[in-house]
């Protein structure tokens, strides 16, 4: 049992017993290897279900939107930044939350690991920096650093930026990370190649909207793809409509996306949907020096005006 898990249970139990919160939102162990399920714990007896390991890649900030109760929420680095974004966007109030911060050491990429083995994986365990994969007739030990989710491998904010109590000591942040290598590669393509790249990337999309629905930023009461008057986008599987959905969704996340990777993790087809949001993250960083969700006292770049805006058309 992980130390972080034990600490999360201890804090949760105390808060519930003291009546400081109505519920805890955390993870419980999943029914498949490398899967955990977001869960709601309301009584101290159920605190034992809470776990923490490298399979907590879903962003729990998603589950806070519009809730009225007092909530203890388990938050790794990126979740905490999305909580800050929620506070800025009035999706939840700070005094409703008790943030159980979890300094994070990265989540593992379940698809990458599955693709490394011919046979079905029956069990995945972890120990320090190792991931132990077992199936019938095989066992293999992998370095965790080699099988991290893509966003976790380039994460530079593993520690929660806002919290009420921590479930572990602060971890060392990754230094000298080149966050935008993939984006630069796409940027350098000539237009036709770029078009082909995006067409190939999105051709498997079935428009299930798991990417959108896993994202804490996508909380519009009616998403533009679901509007019928006017109907902005066709509803079939025409590639133009699919691209319209993805490009527009990414723009709606500009300056708000924390690169938590929940969208990519959720996609049943494993489509690299971060290709879009990362470009906008890069632009926000390079043009405005902005990283989303770092402080609740600063307005995001797309809803502020500054006389020194780098774009000419503003002047």
């Amino acid at each position: 049992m992980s130390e972080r898990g034990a600490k999360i249970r201890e804090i949760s139990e105390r808060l519930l017993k003291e009546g400081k919160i109505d519920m805890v939102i955390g993870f419980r162990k999943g029914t498949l290897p490398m899967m955990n399920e977001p869960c709601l714990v309301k009584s101290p007896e159920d605190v034992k279900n809470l776990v923490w390991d490298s399979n907590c890649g879903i962003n729990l900030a998603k589950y806070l939107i519009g809730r009225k109760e007092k909530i203890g929420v388990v938050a790794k680095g990126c979740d905490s930044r999305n909580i800050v974004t929620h506070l800025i966007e009035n999706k939840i109030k700070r005094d409703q939350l008790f943030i159980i911060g979890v300094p994070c050491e990265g989540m593992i990429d379940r698809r990458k690991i599955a693709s490394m083995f011919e046979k079905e994986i029956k069990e995945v365990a972890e120990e320090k920096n190792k991931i132990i994969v077992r199936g019938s007739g095989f066992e293999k030990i992998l370095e965790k650093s080699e099988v991290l989710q893509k966003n976790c491998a380039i994460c530079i904010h593993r520690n929660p930026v806002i919290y009420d109590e921590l479930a572990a000591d602060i971890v060392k942040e990754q230094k000298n990370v080149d966050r935008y290598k993939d984006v630069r590669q796409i940027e350098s393509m000539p237009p036709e190649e770029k078009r082909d790249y995006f067409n190939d990337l999105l051709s498997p999309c079935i428009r299930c909207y798991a990417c959108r629905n896993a994202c804490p930023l996508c909380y519009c009461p009616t998403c533009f793809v679901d509007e019928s008057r006017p109907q902005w986008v066709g509803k079939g599987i025409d590639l133009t409509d699919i691209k319209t959905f993805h490009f527009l969704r990414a723009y709606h996340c500009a300056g708000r996306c924390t690169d938590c990777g929940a969208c990519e993790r959720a996609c049943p087809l494993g489509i690299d949907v971060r290709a879009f949001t990362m470009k906008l993250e890069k632009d926000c960083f390079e043009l405005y020096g902005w990283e989303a969700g770092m402080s609740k006292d600063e307005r995001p770049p797309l809803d502020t005006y500054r006389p020194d805006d780098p774009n000419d058309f503003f002047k």
Partner: protein
Amino acid sequence: MKVIKINKENWAGGLEKSKGSYRLFGPVKNNELHEFKQLDKEELPDCDYFNTRLSPKSIIYPQSETMFEFSLDENREDHHILKEIDTDYSPRAIIGIRPCDAAAFLLVKRNFSTPEYKDSYWLNAYETTTFIGLACGNPHDTCFCTTTGCGPFNEEGLDLLLVDAGDCYFAKTITSKGENFLRAAGWDAGTDVETVCEQIKTMKQEAEAKITSFVATDKLKDKKTTDLFDAPFWEETAFACINCGACTYACPTCWCFDIQDEVSGYSGIRIRNWDSCMYPLFTLHGSGHNPRSTNMQRVRQRFMHKLKYYPDRYGEGILCVGCGRCIRLCSVNIDIRRVCDLMNSYEVQVTSD
């Protein structure tokens, strides 16, 4: 019933020959994922696979299907008149479909072909297709087909069952459609039927013994619908669900659709697209009222439909073949096996007052 032996060296040739009479579909690996697609000339199905990421239902029931076309050009005499479109219903065969996925079409057929209503799009596609199944020698941990009335060697819904025996396939004909396909492929090598049947029986038992996952459905029938509907476990069950459509789109037995018109310039088409009970829009009324406005109500609908309403209505078991796709593809690990057990074992708490 007839059993023949297809030597693997005659496999490619026979398939190629059958392409003279059938359009063939089969599993093909694309970007790490297997999917069913139409096989080009010389293209072979990859039968060394577990199962496809998405079910093959789209071959019979495409995600987006054109039903009619029309013109809005008032200079034309036929403007604003819906016209049926020409669809190619020439014979097709799906090679290597898993028994669970083939059985799923039978469950779905009860919806698309009732005494009162026949869905011609679905039926035409279904009836012109020959289902060449591939018995499942290596079921996965998420397969629970033996407790959904199906199984890794199940024959219902198939026209021919192939059993991989190393250097050859045993082919068991189930219907005359299956026999016709064998003829078109030119496979006719007879074999000692009795011994082969024994061998298939043993392999079947071995495969079934590899299934480690089960659901209990025996008590669902006797539960009161309203008791299950009002059961307290739905809030906790639905909590993690993000209401995407991954489970319903991947499922071989989910059949819901939505009809849309799309117009470009003066010409338009009427299409039907898969829809999902997970989406808020699914039940949104014109008035703005939504009878299933919450996440919990939608999750409950999915499971109640599969595990209670459908079995009650048709009396032929649940609307699930146990393929496990929804379990594998759910990003938040909602597991139908768990929900089924909750429902099956649910007892109303009687409060004494």
